[in-house]
């Protein structure tokens, strides 16, 4: 065979109660090929990956590895065959060194000689341009470096197929470049790569072929370099859904939120303390904060929502100090919040949409003298469902029964319909289908046009550049300057995301810092 078929999947079917996650999927990955697996959340990518890595067994269908049909017994079996996997959430022990972590996944005979292993780790990581010190403890590594540990772990086991699950979602643009160089080199040397992503531009830059999944079925195969991102997006979402929303620029109004020298020490050992944050938001503008996950975004949201109380003067809303105000008081003053976790914070999973409306919108005349006016709550819930196109069986359905995108539309709707002065939204479109993402973006822009200030905390740079009038980045609990989006380059933002900005940022920088 000229181009050897390394992995071939035929007619893969996997069914879960209530959903067919994979429905007759075909996939072929050739030797040395970087193959993209594209699809929205819930399209069946993860299920397919777990089948290839032997975590779960397909209900039907066949797997062929280097021309031989086989049944995978489990991940250990897959590793033995040369299938390596880098999960989105790393499986590393933070209190162990790089070498110890890698030793854990090796057969005993290879793991025993620690010195030899360390030498091998250094050799492999240098060869692929991924500098890594085998004796460093994992808890001292950045996210990008931790990912390298995962990749080196696969390479040491001489994987001939490397599966990467959304590897770039946790990286800065610069780190993405480094990763891509490594992957290209691997591909040259004959290693196949299955690259799972929903970032189309990256797929076009990196991948030789792409397979697109939608609702468990293959809806297209293409050479991503030869088709436009819009064409790929169409295959992912189908024909009905608009792909993006157009945002007209708008002149902002008065200063609404003033954050000055905000410090917050977190008690969470894995949290990030906020250091001397300064920013101000005007009514009628969307301000974006980029950043790699875990750099203080959640702490900032909690400080603004009132879930964490801070020094009273460090946060002012329309001139009123609210740093010590409890969440309920802040809501009365016009603060609405969309947290990162939809289920289990933004909404109670086992409660109906009606009850989940009451959760934060209780100030909208739903409670009088302690009694809940059920008809008003139901009415509010129906209005959210109608106005924001939430697809649900009924307003009495549990929050868990909604898809991520629909639940997020519901939560955004619940907050937006309270007509807040300030909306703080964290990762509002994370893991959300394209159609819902467009609806959510439209809702944010509408709020802006109605005169609200919107603070958008997101990892999705496309989203930030598209929506925000001004933006900056947060890194290790410090905030970069916030500048006009039109004056900001992606390289500059990438440096800021990596923490490369002057400390103790002045409260306002309106000119370009390039």
């Amino acid at each position: 065979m000229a181009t050897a078929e390394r992995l071939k999947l035929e007619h893969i079917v996997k069914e879960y109660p209530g959903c067919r996650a994979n429905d007759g999927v075909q996939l072929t990955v050739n030797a040395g090929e970087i193959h993209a697996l594209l699809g929205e959340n819930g399209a069946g990518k993860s299920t397919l990956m777990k089948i290839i890595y032997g975590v779960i067994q397909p209900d039907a269908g066949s797997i062929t590895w280097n021309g031989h049909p086989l049944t995978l017994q489990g991940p250990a079996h897959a590793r033995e065959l040369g299938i390596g996997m880098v999960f989105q959430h790393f499986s590393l022990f933070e209190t162990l060194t790089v070498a110890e972590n890698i030793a854990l996944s090796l057969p005993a005979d290879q793991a025993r000689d620690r010195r030899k292993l360390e030498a091998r780790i250094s050799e492999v990581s240098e060869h692929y341009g991924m500098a890594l010190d085998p004796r460093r403890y994992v808890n001292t590594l950045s996210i990008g470096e931790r990912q390298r540990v995962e990749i080196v772990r696969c390479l040491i086991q001489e994987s001939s197929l490397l599966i990467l699950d959304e590897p770039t979602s946790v990286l800065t643009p610069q780190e993405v470049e480094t990763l891509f160089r490594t992957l290209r080199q691997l591909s040259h040397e004959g290693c196949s790569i299955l690259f799972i992503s929903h970032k189309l531009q990256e797929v076009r830059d990196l991948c030789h072929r792409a397979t697109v999944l939608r609702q468990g079925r293959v809806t297209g195969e293409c050479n991503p370099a030869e088709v436009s991102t819009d064409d790929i997006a169409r295959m992912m979402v189908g024909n009905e859904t608009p792909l993006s929303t157009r945002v007209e620029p708008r002149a902002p109004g008065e200063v609404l939120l003033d954050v000055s020298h905000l410090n917050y020490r977190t008690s969470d050992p894995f949290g990030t303390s906020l250091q001397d944050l300064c920013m101000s938001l005007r009514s009628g503008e969307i301000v974006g904060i980029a950043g790699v996950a875990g750099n203080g975004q959640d702490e900032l949201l909690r400080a603004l929502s009132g879930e964490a109380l801070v020094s009273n003067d460090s946060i002012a809303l329309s001139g009123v100090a609210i740093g010590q105000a409890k969440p309920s008081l802040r809501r009365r003053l016009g603060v609405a919040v969309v947290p990162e976790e939809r289920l289990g914070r933004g909404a109670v999973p086992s409660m109906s949409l009606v009850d989940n409306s009451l959760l934060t919108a209780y100030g909208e005349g739903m409670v009088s003298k302690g009694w809940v006016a059920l008809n008003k709550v139901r009415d509010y819930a129906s209005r959210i469902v109608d106005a924001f196109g939430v697809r649900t069986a009924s307003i009495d359905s549990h929050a868990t029964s909604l898809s991520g995108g629909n639940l997020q539309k519901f939560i955004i709707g619940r907050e937006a319909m309270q007509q807040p002065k300030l909306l703080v939204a964290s990762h509002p479109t994370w893991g959300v289908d394209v159609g819902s993402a467009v609806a959510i973006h439209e809702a944010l822009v509408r709020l802006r046009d109605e005169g609200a200030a919107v603070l958008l905390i997101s990892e999705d740079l496309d989203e930030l550049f598209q929506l925000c009038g001004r933006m900056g980045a947060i890194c290790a609990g410090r905030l970069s300057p916030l500048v006009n989006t039109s004056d900001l380059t992606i390289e500059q933002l990438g440096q800021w995301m990596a923490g490369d900005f002057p400390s103790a940022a002045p409260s306002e920088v309106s000119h370009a810092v390039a």
Partner: protein
Amino acid sequence: MLSLERRAVDSRAMQWASPLLALVLTIITGMGIFMALGKDPVEGLTFFFLTPLSDKHGWAELGLKMAPLLLCAAGLTICYRAKLWNIGAEGHFLMGALWASVVALQLGGQSGPWVLPLVLIAGMVAGAVWALLAGLLKTQFHCNEILTTIMLNYIALNLLLYAVHGPLKDPYGFGFPQSEMFAASALLPKLIPETRLHIGLLFGLLAAVAVGVLFARTFIGFQLKVLGQDERAAAFAGFPAKRLTLLAFILAGGLAGLAGASEVTGPLGQLVPQVSPGYGYTAIIVVFLGRMQAVGIVLAAALLALTFMGGEMLQIAMALPKAITGLFQGLLLFYLLTCDAFIHYRIRIRRAPKAVAGEA
């Protein structure tokens, strides 16, 4: 191969079928126990479940025993809906009985319509304070409420024993550890004449309804539910978790305290060491069996009240030990918790996966 599989949606049918199934399994096991003891199982079950209710007095006794169970269970429901695992109804009950007795004896000479309410309120306050202790230990020091409430139960029992052996002991009681009889002004009116059934049953029914309304209609009830189901959502929404926790404990303590007060001012008319045959503990079973719903806990309270009477009946009629009551109650809870697993899971018979060709 059998395997447990998580259901996509919790089964509503199983939610209510589970208690019935548990009851059936308890009865079957009970028959096995009768046989193992060499007794006729049908006769045993008849004595346990049917004979106690064969006349008006039987039904009155059932209501009498339901009253404290319902009051305790209504209070515990408030805690359990908020996932506060208060095991302390027994202690709240005992403190209620103790302090209601103290007040009743102090007001011994008085007559007037205000005496009884004062006695009952004393019981409620005592129960509420006792529960508040556990609540504060939880909110201020993060003490696990299961441990603290159990320990406080023992302390309450020993305080009560001290009182009946010491300061409250009837000087003319021939040395028995019990208080004087209360004056008529401190006794609960009868509901049905010539029986022991008093208006405490109405308190219980009222409490069950009130708890139903609390969770169906009020914002406090809603906040308690959210706190129980999703602490992070409660914090996000800005619900005052500590105050809600303390409130749940106070309400549970007050209701159980009222149960204790009703017991000493009702059928007993004095404070005795055996004021509770374990009502506070049995109420836990009532809450779970009754699905934390008003109607459910009324039915469950009736069933568990019957186990007390059935146990007594078996002692008399078949010379079986008193432990038989606890045995039946324990079996019922055990089977209930087992059957409850099928609300979230279902059994699935799985075929072995088809072998697909050979190995590579």
